């Protein structure tokens, strides 16, 4: 299936144009695709003999090239996600800083957060040392080779780990051994979705352990809060989760929530809610209202940045609903820390970064 993609890409004239700009890369491709994809050395010598235009029309030629582009694009996506907070997140953080009272520990915390965001970007290094669960969300067209894509994602994750964009963060649950490469059962976590577009979109979220640990799943009715099977019950358990989290999830945070589903689907959907932009509006009016109310009420709890006490406890809340069984009513809550590292790219036909999604 990967071949289909590249054939398609090769048929577009843009490939030839791009290729002719970078003759060195292209010329190496015939050797690479047929024999040893890892050998890059012969490329300089070959570059002198063959011109780009002659090579490009051959069907197999762009395979290795687009593959190399994809590796570079994925590595850049990981670097950027780890080091640079998206604009929508930065905006709400600066607003939160303005709200805090001067000369308080809350303001102090927000100022350090602001300085950290700037420094990480400048130094191109991880915003937070816990580079978290590496969660990829890939939207792809029909006829896409997930297996081949997964291998390239893994390769990029290893490279990003070697370069220090990702911490060695994957531990064998039975032996306690750290693979040192962020690869292993469940790591990285990759979610594929087919869409009706010809493009590939790759979103990445790095979700640290501190905030993952304060996530919660409630089963309604929930006796201790008298929370029933309705939106008011949902509201009660969400606020309870915010209170229980205190500052442990590196607040001020953002909630992704799923009402309904089974236990597994609920948690997956709650994380996918965190792919929404902070300034979007929920298309379901009752959920839009609940989202605003949760933020407003949580901020009245006064937990504040880092749990120091203060005005901002939550920066946002995103909720969706899945159908449920008559017997089940789950509310699944994923808490995202202020270091809300998510980014995404749309790839070009030759797998270069065409557009940033956040």
């Amino acid at each position, binding site marked *: 299936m990967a071949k289909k993609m590249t054939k398609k890409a090769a048929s577009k004239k843009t490939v030839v144009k791009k290729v002719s700009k970078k003759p060195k890369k292209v010329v190496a491709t015939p050797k690479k695709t047929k024999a040893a994809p890892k050998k890059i050395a012969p490329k300089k010598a070959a570059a002198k003999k063959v011109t780009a235009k002659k090579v490009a029309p051959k069907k197999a030629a762009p395979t290795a090239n687009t593959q190399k582009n994809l590796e570079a694009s994925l590595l850049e996506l990981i670097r950027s996600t780890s080091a640079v907070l998206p604009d929508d997140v930065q905006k709400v953080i600066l607003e939160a800083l303005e709200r805090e009272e001067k000369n308080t*520990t809350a303001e*102090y*915390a927000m100022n*350090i*957060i602001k*300085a*950290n965001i700037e*420094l*990480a970007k400048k*130094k191109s*290094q*991880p*915003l*937070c*040392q*816990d*580079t978290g669960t590496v969660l990829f969300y890939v939207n792809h067209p029909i006829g896409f080779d997930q297996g081949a894509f997964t291998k390239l994602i893994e390769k990029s994750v290893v490279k990003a780990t070697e370069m*220090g964009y990702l*911490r*060695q*963060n994957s*531990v064998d649950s039975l032996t*306690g*051994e*750290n693979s*040192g490469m962020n690869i292993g059962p469940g790591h990285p976590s990759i979610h594929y979705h087919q869409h009706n577009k010809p493009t590939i979109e790759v979103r990445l979220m790095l979700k*640290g*352990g*501190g905030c993952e*640990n304060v996530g919660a799943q409630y089963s309604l009715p929930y006796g201790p*809060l008298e929370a029933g099977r309705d939106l008011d019950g949902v509201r*009660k358990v969400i*606020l*309870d989760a915010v*209170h229980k989290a*205190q*500052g*442990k*999830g*590196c607040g001020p945070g953002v909630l992704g929530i799923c009402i309904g589903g089974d236990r597994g689907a609920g948690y997956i959907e709650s994380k996918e809610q965190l792919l929404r932009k902070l300034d979007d509006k929920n298309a379901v009016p009752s959920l839009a209202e609940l989202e605003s109310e949760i933020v407003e*009420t949580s901020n*009245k*709890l*006064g*937990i*504040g940045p*880092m*749990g*120091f*006490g203060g005005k901002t406890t939550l920066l946002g809340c995103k909720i969706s609903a899945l159908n449920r069984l008559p017997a089940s009513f789950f509310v699944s809550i994923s808490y995202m*820390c*202020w*270091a809300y590292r998510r980014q995404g790219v749309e790839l070009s036909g030759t797998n270069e970064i065409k557009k940033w999604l956040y």
Partner: protein
Amino acid sequence: MKRLTYPFTHEAVRDLKVGDMVLLTGKLFTGRDAVHKRLHEGVKPPVDLNNQIIYHCGPVILQDKATGKYTVTAAGPTTSIREEPYQAEVMKDYGIVGVIGKGGMGAKTLAGCKEYGCVYFHAIGGAAQVLAEKIDSVDAVHWLDLGSPEAIWELSVTDFPVVVTMDAHGNSLHAKVEASSAEELKKALQD
């Protein structure tokens, strides 16, 4: 802004109060889940922790392949509450003067702080770059078999910014905020 400078003493940390913003200069030893578990199992620490500070942190460390030298590229605090079962014991057995972490700790650690003259310093969670900038050098590493994030890294720091959220006099900002937010939650749930 207060300053606490190496060598640290129990007397100096007893002077600190909840809410104090402090700049630490001197030596820190990282130690998180696996280190605390191992100490709890009775293994003696590889360094003398008397009058030292333990930092709940799993840094991103790069090693120069040519020189073997380590550098810290990111080093924020990890959630401390996971060490709650062990922390007071470590205070008692090894004479530390404090711990740095995030999210605060519970009643057992607070009692330990009071009894053994320790404080809990809260660093800003997620601020890995600001905090890594305050690290001048990586002086040694111990128990690297636990994996890089879990090892004991001996760090020299200058003006490392923290907030005292649990002091040696039985006060905890975390207990206070938890109680006041519980009151607010009760009101919100009745609305």
